[in-house]
């Protein structure tokens, strides 16, 4: 057994990261406006929303589940939060209430999956549809502005402010990342999540309370979707009834790009972060290079396909 640096193994294990670096290098050759501090912070800020959702989605997918309701929960949380801010609710109360609502909506989906044996795809599809309906009822189909109180100005900072030159959404995403990384790697809950995804029956036999873990996992996903909804609403100073449409697809793409298996049990939260960055860089680069919108979708699909195929091959060969 050699301890020396094995370049081939390193490449095989870090396909997503290398893909991100190659992509960034290619774009910076093409456009001088890409690799600037301003634009990199801009990309991080735009990516933070998808990254936060995708980190919750990672928990779900690690248990071999899926959560399609994230976009609807994001929109509902945003709408509730905006109306609370507009009613001059203290900031901390509004934020915590919104997070609890998101967790509760997620836990509801999780309970349907855990206790009624409904497949995650179906249960969260139902959640996605019903919560979107709630959003439309609650907002009456119109945007909700956060209003003119002082609390609205401090609320804007959640999405538009900076801490030591770093956009606050990026700071929040960083904290969420560290928390998720810690939970998945150093806590019992993290081990249970991997165990359930690896083999649910074995986990059950080994004494893991599978139902409870599932409810917790979907609650985490719901709460993080609500957090993303708060940031989005703060950035726009208004909540949109159509916010978050198709966000579940970007989140799932980020998780899969990061090398997490849709079959569950295998994957890393760092991969998800890189996956989200690949999508963020791609969106930014296509805009900066002024690529025609008709070609953008083809380009996005091609990059995702390439990354997943390369990653799949590296896993197959390293076995």
């Amino acid at each position, binding site marked *: 057994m050699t301890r020396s640096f094995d370049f081939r193994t390193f490449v095989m294990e870090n396909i997503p990261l290398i893909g991100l670096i190659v992509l960034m290098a290619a774009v910076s050759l093409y*456009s001088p*406006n*890409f690799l*600037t501090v*301003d*634009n990199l912070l*801009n990309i991080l*800020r*735009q990516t933070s929303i998808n990254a936060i959702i995708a980190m919750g989605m990672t928990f779900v997918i690690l248990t071999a589940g899926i959560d399609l309701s994230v976009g609807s929960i994001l929109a509902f949380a945003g709408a509730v939060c905006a109306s609370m801010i507009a009613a001059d609710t203290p900031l901390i109360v509004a934020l915590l209430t919104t997070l609890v609502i998101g967790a509760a909506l997620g836990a509801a989906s999780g309970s349907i999956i855990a206790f009624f044996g409904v497949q995650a795809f179906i249960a969260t599809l139902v959640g996605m549809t019903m919560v979107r309906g709630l959003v439309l009822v609650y907002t009456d189909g119109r*945007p909700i*502005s956060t209003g003119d109180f002082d609390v609205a100005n401090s609320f804007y900072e959640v999405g*538009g402010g900076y801490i030591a030159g770093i956009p606050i959404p990026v700071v929040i995403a960083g904290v969420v990342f560290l928390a998720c990384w810690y939970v998945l790697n150093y806590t019992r809950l993290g081990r249970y999540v991997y165990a359930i995804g690896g083999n649910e029956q074995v986990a059950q036999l080994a004494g893991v309370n599978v139902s409870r873990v599932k409810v917790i996992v979907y609650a985490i996903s719901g709460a993080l979707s609500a957090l993303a909804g708060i940031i*989005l609403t703060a*950035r*726009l*100073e*208004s909540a*949109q009834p*159509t*916010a978050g*449409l198709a966000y579940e697809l970007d989140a799932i793409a980020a998780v899969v790009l990061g090398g997490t298996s849709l079959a569950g049990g295998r994957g890393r939260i760092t991969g998800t972060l890189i996956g989200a960055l690949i999508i963020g860089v791609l*969106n*930014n680069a296509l*805009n*900066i*290079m*002024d690529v*025609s*919108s*008709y070609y*953008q979708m083809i380009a996005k699909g091609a990059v995702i396909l390439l990354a997943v195929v390369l990653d799949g091959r590296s896993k197959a060969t390293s076995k």
Partner: protein
Amino acid sequence: MKKLFGLATATAMLLGSTAPSFAADTLALVVSTLNNPFFVTLKEGAEGKASELGYELLVLDSQNDPAKELAAVEDVLNKDVKLLMINPTDSDAVRSAIRAANRKDVPVVTLDRGASGGEVVSHVASDNVQGGEMAAELVNSTFEGTAKVVELQGVPGTSAARDRGEGFNKGIDAVEGLSIVASQAADFDRTKGLNVMENILQAQPEIDVVFAHNDEMALGAIKAIEAAKRDILVIGFDGTDDAVAAVNDGTMLATVAQQAGMIGALGVETADKILKGEAVPEYTPVPLKLIQK
């Protein structure tokens, strides 16, 4: 006797077709919803024109429900209506209602939203191409013929995005000093308007004005421009409440608005022509207006 009767009907028909004001024919207007100021204005425009031309106007509200819409159409077809004007709740769902009118030989005119099936004599709706041209003219007059322009497009492939973009590009291309430095889709969405505009701001050091295919994207772009502390004017499209408020407080230069009342009025005018046997175009464009401070 028989001859006399024939003469009488012929006279009645003649009178009926040349002077509808004597007969007070009834037109039906089925509106998708009256719970939205836009469609209330549309209805009022139709009512005004109908009384001017001497028609009875029967108005029914579908409450955004295709089932209620079909029931409303079936109800009016059982009364003696000469023509059906319909503002569909949904282009596909309205087809069965239109076929019901076709079976009874009642001519149909669609307002604002088109139908994907059934026989429709004429469609009356805003002229999006002209709206795009108006925005380009405003850019031209505001910047006296020299400006770097960004275009935020709607969902690629939709008729609104295509038409508004076509008119705008035509107007910009016609003036030598105006150039579009970036043209990107933000899917009619405020969040995407914000993100896409942020990216374009990174790429383009010089931008004078943004034209967005709808107000939602324009409002998102304004947030991006404010955060970047750049000095760029924004033009939207639709004249939504939020956008009109933004125009009034000076954050938005203008919004191109549809004239709901005129859609209703032109609908009745078209109906009048059809009943008089005059030829009408398949599509009657309704002009838009610029809302500025």
